[in-house]
């Protein structure tokens, strides 16, 4: 059975801290790993990773994939209160673009 696991499930940090969110997966027919941010509404797309070892960056956020060890991390540096959200990890499969989501990590950034 396909499985996507995220850790920690919740996290509270102070503004300015750096955080690392983890995602591991056991999925057949892997095609891509995706990260989304959800703030009390619909998830919004952050990154898609398909190759191991290639870091993707967007501002203070970065992510990397290890296809051998079957995990990905999402780093957020110099956190701000606006980073407070649930971060969802998902794995895309090769069959008809099916996507399996993890349970999410709830991040709270306090001033």
């Amino acid at each position, binding site marked *: 059975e396909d499985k996507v696991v995220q850790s920690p499930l919740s996290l509270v940090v102070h503004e300015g801290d750096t955080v690392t969110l983890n995602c591991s997966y056991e999925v057949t027919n892997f095609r*891509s790993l995706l990260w989304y941010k959800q703030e009390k509404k619909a998830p919004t*797309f952050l990154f898609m990773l398909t190759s191991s070892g290639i870091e993707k960056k967007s501002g203070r956020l970065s992510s990397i994939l290890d296809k051998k060890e079957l995990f990905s991390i999402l780093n957020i540096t110099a956190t701000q209160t606006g980073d407070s959200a649930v971060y969802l990890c998902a794995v895309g499969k090769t069959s008809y673009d099916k996507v399996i989501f993890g349970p999410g990590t709830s991040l709270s950034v306090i001033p």
Partner: protein
Amino acid sequence: DAGITQSPRHKVTETGTPVTLRCHQTENHRYMYWYRQDPGHGLRLIHYSYGVKDTDKGEVSDGYSVSRSKTEDFLLTLESATSSQTSVYFCAISDQDTYEQYFGPGTRLTVT
């Protein structure tokens, strides 16, 4: 933002009644999905479509049916609503080439 709308945005219904949720896109994307989101479970796939009249089941399809007669519309029907179907329902679309999914605003359904 991707052009995806969902209707209704909120609905309260009684157990045993049929309910239809609508997802409409203006992006001409091939793939459309229905998810439900519940505390502790994240997003779970109900049904998805890979073209007009082409649909398949996701991991939590029992009690739900779907139809896609046009590229732009994907309907989710609860044949006989139960309290366990109280949830937030999200529609999503993706393009064949990019694989990224874009989500609609969600429908909050309460079954009493």
